[in-house]
């Protein structure tokens, strides 16, 4: 019998309520706490009469501010509660393991190729990205954990981000109107691969990821995609095979040498005139935005956010055999690039290029 007071069992209502509370606190953090921090920062800059030029300049201004201390604490700890608290995603999915493993025993709806011999790179296993204990690669049910977690990664989603993937696929179409072969690198559980496959029904869409657990979920959510466990830096596709190579939120999870290898692999598998579009975090409009982004990377266990933002991507792409490189801010919803938009948001950026 399930009892409310059992110390070991989390009932579904309590799990949902606790996760909803955590999301509510995160929404408050995104709007009120960040908005207040930004206003206090701007006031201090006004009073000093000196515009900060660097991340260090910003840090000197905010480091001792009480609002910043709470801002940092809540950013770090609400994510920790979300995953690892008493009602966290990890204890919940551990408890639900038997049911989830039964789901994994069902046949996938899309082709799925796993490679049990694939070695996980050291950078990938050394840090639990997003504060997800064990990462997305080590536990068979980790794909479900990630899927559930990402439903509240951007808790303003209901209000603002609902059409983000639609906007991204529209951008893909502008760059490459009718691709026949598409490769989605670092596809995760297929959150962005699904809309790409739906948008280009005539195309053969292949999607690769390092982690089997996320591919297991992807192949049970999305049809018309071939999911393959593979390192994006060394795929087995022939030279010039694809019309379009994409990734969403992949590059910032890799150290710069791996980013370079990934982009070089994209160049190899694209035919001349083929297009590459990555959605990631890169352009930062001022030192305050840069400081907020770098410290987010530290607090959310994403150590490569800062190095990616510091890279000269345009020069690298030129060297790797791309032309018509565009690195532009991406509006995930109407109005978010306006200075009047005061809430916290990721510095979404699209990197598009054409294979020479």
């Amino acid at each position: 019998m399930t009892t409310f007071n059992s110390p070991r069992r989390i009932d579904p209502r309590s799990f949902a309520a606790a996760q909803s509370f955590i999301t509510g606190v995160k929404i408050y953090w995104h709007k009120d706490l960040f908005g207040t921090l930004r206003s206090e920062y701007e006031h201090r800059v006004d009073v000093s009469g000196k515009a900060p030029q660097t991340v260090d300049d910003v840090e000197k201004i905010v480091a001792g501010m009480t609002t910043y201390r709470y801002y940092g604490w809540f950013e770090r700890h609400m994510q920790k509660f979300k995953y690892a608290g008493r009602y966290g995603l990890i204890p919940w999915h551990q408890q639900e393991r038997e049911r989830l493993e039964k789901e994994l025993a069902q046949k996938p709806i899309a082709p799925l190729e796993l490679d049990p011999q694939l070695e996980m790179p050291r950078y990938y296993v050394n840090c639990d990205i997003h504060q997800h204990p064990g990462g997305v690669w080590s536990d068979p049910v980790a794909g479900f954990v990630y899927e559930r977690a990402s439903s509240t990664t951007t808790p303003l989603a209901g209000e603002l981000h609902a059409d983000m993937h639609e906007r991204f696929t529209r951008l893909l179409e502008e760059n490459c109107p009718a691709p026949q072969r598409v490769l989605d690198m670092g596809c995760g559980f297929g959150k962005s691969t699904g809309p790409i496959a739906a948008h280009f029904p005539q195309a053969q869409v292949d999607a690769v990821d390092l982690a089997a657990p996320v591919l297991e979920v992807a192949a049970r959510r999305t049809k018309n995609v071939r999911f393959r466990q593979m390192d994006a830096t060394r795929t087995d596709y022939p030279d010039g095979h694809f019309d379009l190579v994409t990734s969403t939120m992949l590059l910032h999870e890799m150290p710069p040498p791996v980013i370079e290898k990934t982009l070089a692999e994209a160049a190899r598998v694209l035919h001349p005139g083929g297009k590459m579009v990555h959605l990631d975090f890169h352009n930062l409009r001022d030192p305050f935005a840069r400081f907020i982004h770098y410290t987010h990377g530290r607090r959310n266990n994403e150590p490569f956010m800062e190095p990616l933002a510091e890279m000269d991507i345009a020069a690298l792409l030129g060297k790797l055999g791309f032309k018509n490189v565009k690195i532009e801010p991406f509006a995930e919803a109407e109005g978010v690039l306006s200075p009047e938009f005061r809430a916290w948001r990721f510095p979404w950026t699209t990197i598009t290029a054409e294979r020479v």
Partner: protein
Amino acid sequence: MHSPAPEAAALFKPHPEQTFFPDPALDRAMGVVMALATEVYVLRDRLFALERLLAESGTFDRARLDAAPTPEEAAASAADRDAFVNGLLSSVLALQASKGATS
């Protein structure tokens, strides 16, 4: 699968948590506060669900539950309120309950 969950768990050696306040005691106390707040919200959610189910089944009249207490009820609960407050705030006075060293 590459490695089962127990292996991943064995890989994990806890590092000291990041701190944000001049006194890390506040970092830790904030964690306790937010864990308690989560429990309060879980209880509140469950209480509302229980009330809804009971009201739907006709077991009780929601309007009577929601009504402000009568003066008699308020008087009867005042003693309970005072005991609750005393229990909650007694630590603020920082007095020993048994004889012993003071530091």
